[in-house]
């Protein structure tokens, strides 16, 4: 190296001390100006006070015994009561359905090879197994129930191995198996007349978190494709199709869900043939799906409108026919652009499933309310129960927004 190049080389200096490390970060983010400092102080004091009194109440004063007392009802509602399932313990059926889900998550983990899928699989499988060790002698929670909960770990492993070592280890197989698992879950829960262990359980007894989750999964899985069709229809050049879609969307967006649920009791029986399975659950699923598809359609239409027209032109110039242009070029980009509002909508759909109490179904919130009402000795502990329910909803919705953020990051690769 010549002396000249040493002299002319630009100096590379470490950043000044105050800019790095903890102190630097705090100075830049918490105390950058006098009002920022004031906010930091006020926020810290409030946080400390809230934690002090909150934790104090949670640990010392609150009586959480109401939660295990309600126990399995929180999860499956009245599914297991004598009237629903005479002479048997039917708890194993929803539990077997849970095993199917864990096994599918295990498969998804093997296919994705880690990341967010792995974390979700481990959290769900781990939490299910951990429930087996709850210290309480839970109502309806005998040894068989606990063993079935523990079985979630082998189910996770089995799913993982199945995907890893057989030809079933692909995204499309998992999609197909998910649909099969969902149908199987419904059959398992509904029962088959004449089959000894599968005594039919009327849907009015389905309840608890299981009901919220069933309605949410059905609503999300169905409103997504229906919403896409409506969004495309609203942009169609065929004026009749366009008009029908607009009328549909504006009708279902314009009426409160609770009203639609009420009306479903009267209208769905008129709209479908007599031999169509007619029950509150199916009606609720239909109404929630239609309601959600109207919003979904508008979200996706927003995504389609945000596309540069050059995208469609480039595809058409390559000779791709219109439907392939939509399928391979417009829709994937449109959906990617509107993941946050779509997930927001799924979160509110999940929370809205609680509204089915209005047509007499005992979802997780309603069964808790009914329990408190029927057992006045727990009236003083209603707050513990509802704080617990809030936490349950939060865990699920937080899970959804966590997944969506990871999916966004993952898909963001091509955007930059």
């Amino acid at each position, binding site marked *: 190296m010549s002396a000249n190049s040493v002299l002319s080389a630009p100096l590379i200096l470490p950043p000044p001390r105050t800019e790095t490390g903890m102190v630097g970060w705090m100075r830049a983010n918490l105390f950058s100006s006098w009002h920022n400092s004031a906010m930091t102080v006020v926020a810290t004091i409030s946080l400390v006070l809230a934690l002090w009194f909150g934790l104090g109440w949670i640990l010392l004063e609150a009586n959480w015994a109401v939660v295990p007392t309600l126990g399995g009802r929180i999860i499956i509602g009245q599914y297991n009561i004598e009237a629903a399932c005479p002479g048997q313990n039917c708890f194993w059926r929803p539990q077997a359905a849970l095993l199917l889900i864990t096994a599918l998550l295990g498969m998804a983990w093997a296919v994705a090879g880690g990341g967010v899928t792995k974390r979700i699989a481990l959290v769900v499988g781990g939490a299910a197994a951990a429930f087996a060790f709850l210290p309480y002698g839970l109502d309806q929670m005998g040894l068989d129930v606990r063993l079935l909960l523990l079985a979630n770990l082998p189910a996770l492993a089995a799913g993982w191995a199945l995907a890893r070592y057989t030809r079933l280890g692909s995204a499309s197989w998992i999609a197909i198996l998910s649909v099969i698992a969902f149908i199987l879950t419904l059959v398992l829960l509904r029962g088959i007349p004449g089959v000894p262990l599968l005594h039919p359980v009327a849907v009015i007894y389905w309840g608890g978190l299981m009901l919220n989750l069933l309605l949410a999964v059905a609503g999300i899985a169905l409103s997504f494709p229906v919403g896409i069709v409506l969004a495309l229809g609203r942009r169609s050049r065929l004026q009749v199709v366009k008009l029908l879609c607009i009328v549909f969307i504006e009708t279902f967006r314009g009426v409160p869900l609770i009203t639609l649920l009420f009306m479903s009791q009267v209208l769905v029986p008129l709209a479908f043939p007599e031999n169509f399975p007619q029950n509150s659950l199916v009606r609720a699923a239909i109404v929630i799906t239609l309601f959600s598809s109207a919003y979904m359609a508008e979200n996706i239409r927003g995504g389609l409108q945000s596309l*540069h027209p*050059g*995208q469609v*032109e*480039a*595809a*058409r*110039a*390559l*000779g*791709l*026919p219109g439907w*392939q242009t939509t399928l*391979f*070029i417009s829709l*994937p*980009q449109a959906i*990617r652009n509107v993941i946050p509002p779509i997930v927001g909508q799924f979160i509110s759909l999940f929370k809205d499933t609680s509204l089915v109490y209005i047509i007499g179904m005992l979802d997780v919130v309603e069964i808790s309310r009914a329990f408190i009402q029927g057992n006045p000795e727990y009236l003083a502990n209603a707050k513990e129960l509802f704080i617990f329910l809030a936490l349950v909803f939060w865990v699920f919705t937080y899970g959804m927004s966590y997944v969506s953020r990871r999916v966004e990051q993952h*898909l963001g*690769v*091509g*955007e*930059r």
Partner: protein
Amino acid sequence: MVANEPTIEQTIETDDIIVCRDVHKWFGDFHVLRGITTTIKKGEVVVVFGPSGSGKSTFIRTINRLEEHQRGDIFVDGIALTNDTRNIDAIRRDVGMVFQSFNLFPHLKVMTNITLAPMKVRKLPAKQAVAQAMELLERVGIPEQADKYPAELSGGQQQRVAIARALAMQPKIMLFDEPTSALDPEMIKEVLDAMRELATSGMTMIVVTHEMGFAKEVADRMMMFDDGVIVEEGSPEQIFEAPRSDRTKLFLSQIL
């Protein structure tokens, strides 16, 4: 009218690949193309230039039916451009287009950008489509970018991918709409080089550009557009050295 006057079809010679007869187009009330008549031969490289808003883009976009003309006739490779969608699809397969803003598909990797149409439209098996895409990427000089997303490439590289993507459909004609005007100066050359190579290979090309060095060197014919009509056409020598129209003279004096 003279009896036995030949129909347009009968006047088309076998090496005429694009024939425009009195083509008119309106955007609403706005008369954009006001009677375009020209014939382009197989293997010819035509450079189209003229002031902004004169209808150059609209003209080349009518050739693959991204815009519909409302009067007159256009024949591409012997097929009349009408509302018949089968004709339109057939023509789009034979006409490649490169846009000013590249219009690569941002959600697909470079490789998939190139293989998508051959696989879906020409039903090329995946293996062949990938092999062909690699060849084309070599041809435009960026085989190492196959596994990246468009946004990870420079503008010049993106435009070369766009050229490769159009060539993957094995078109008979290539249309370029100001392919270098969105590029930083140091990247213009790499794109022009790819186009020059394509011209040498015998491709029929219509290029809207104001890169006059490229035009002088590569064009067989130049076409000056103004106000929706072809003001003047001729060889580059004639256009640069002895322009017949005052408007051409004025325009060239402004940009050179």
